[in-house]
């Protein structure tokens, strides 16, 4: 019953996205895709989130924010990079202020490519993340023992 994957709550953060992926993330909540049927809630609060969903590459301003949000999430937690910018830095990779993908700052568990990433692939990515989440929870429990 206490499987994390039955009620994954997510936190959506826009690191430097053009808003294309953000809109697709919000699409997932709409009646057509209805991500809540998996028990997923968009919490907007790192203290209550299990999945950190980041769109856009990391720039020098958002770097500390991403790190802090990650640190404020309780274990077990996973990070999903949504969109090609979040995965690798995308077309902005060479910009003077862009550090690159999310994985340059915090460990990323699932990469969802696309520009913008389609809602179906975002949901697919989240579902993959849930498996990682369950594994992490198992590992955490064994750790405690």
């Amino acid at each position, binding site marked *: *019953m206490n*499987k994390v994957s039955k*009620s994954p709550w997510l936190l959506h953060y826009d690191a430097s996205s053009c808003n294309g992926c953000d809109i697709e993330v919000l699409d997932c909540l709409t009646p057509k895709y*209805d991500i*809540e*049927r998996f028990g997923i809630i968009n*919490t907007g609060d790192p*203290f209550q989130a299990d999945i950190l969903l980041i769109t856009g590459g990391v720039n020098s301003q958002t770097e500390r924010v991403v790190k802090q949000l990650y640190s404020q999430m*309780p274990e077990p937690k996973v990070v999903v990079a949504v969109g090609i910018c979040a995965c690798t830095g995308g077309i902005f990779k060479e910009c003077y202020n862009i550090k690159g993908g999310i994985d340059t700052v915090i460990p990323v568990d699932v990469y969802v490519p696309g520009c913008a990433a389609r809602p179906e692939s975002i949901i697919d990515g989240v579902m993959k993340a849930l498996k990682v989440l369950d594994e992490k929870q198992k590992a955490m429990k064994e750790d405690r023992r």
Partner: protein
Amino acid sequence: MNVCFVIAYLLFAPLLGGLLDGTDRIISARMQRRKGPSILQPFYDLGKLFSKELIAVNNVQFLLNLSYLVILMIAGALLFFGADLLMTLFILSTADMFLIMAASSDSSPYANMGASREMLQMMAYEPLTLLIAVGFYLAEGSFQVSDIIDAPVSAILWMPGLFVGFMYTAAIKLRKSPFDLSTSHHAHQEMVKGITTEMSGPALAIMNIAEYYELVLLLGIFSLFFINSTWWSWIVAIIACGLVFFAETLWDNVSARVKWKSLLYSCWIVTLVAGGVNILILMLIK
């Protein structure tokens, strides 16, 4: 008999509350043409929250949160034991105080804003709550819940105004739109988590369980309006509670969050018009 009620409340209120919450989420989803989560989703959530690591921003918040839960349980136990209604309501507000303390103990901007709004909400619903106790006292001649449920006719006949007023202000307690200023169940509000911002894992689970206890407690008060000495009045009360709960869900889905001024003034005016007039009439005819 009364002790059975209390034990039943303490054991099953979270279950009932959780199921109601699940139903609420499904109904809301259907109203928005979505499928919605499973009815057991609240329990999955609780299980997950308890399994998570406890992180906190200070050392007292968890303590105050636990106190909130336990004092709420005591308030509910008193109601279901058939004790004094007014005292129950006083303890209920004391419990809420602990929640406010828990939120403001961490000096965080969002939790603090939530706590301030929660205080304002308390100020908005408190007058009507007291008037309800007064109404029962006038209608049935006692503050004792055990006397109220033994009355020959249902209290709703004497106090329809108070019932309507209570439905209006109960939206605050149930944290339903348009009155979910301090913390909300939906992500589309201008301040989403507010008072619970700094609560994570087990702390949030405790907060949720407390909410379930509170929900059942409130429905208990709603059913007091209907229950009389006949057996079928209990069935009426249960149906009525269901209808009230549905109405609150509907209201939640069709209205947007209001500003604090509209909240305070509208609650006070409804209290005065629906509750005050009802009390005045009761005083004149009783």
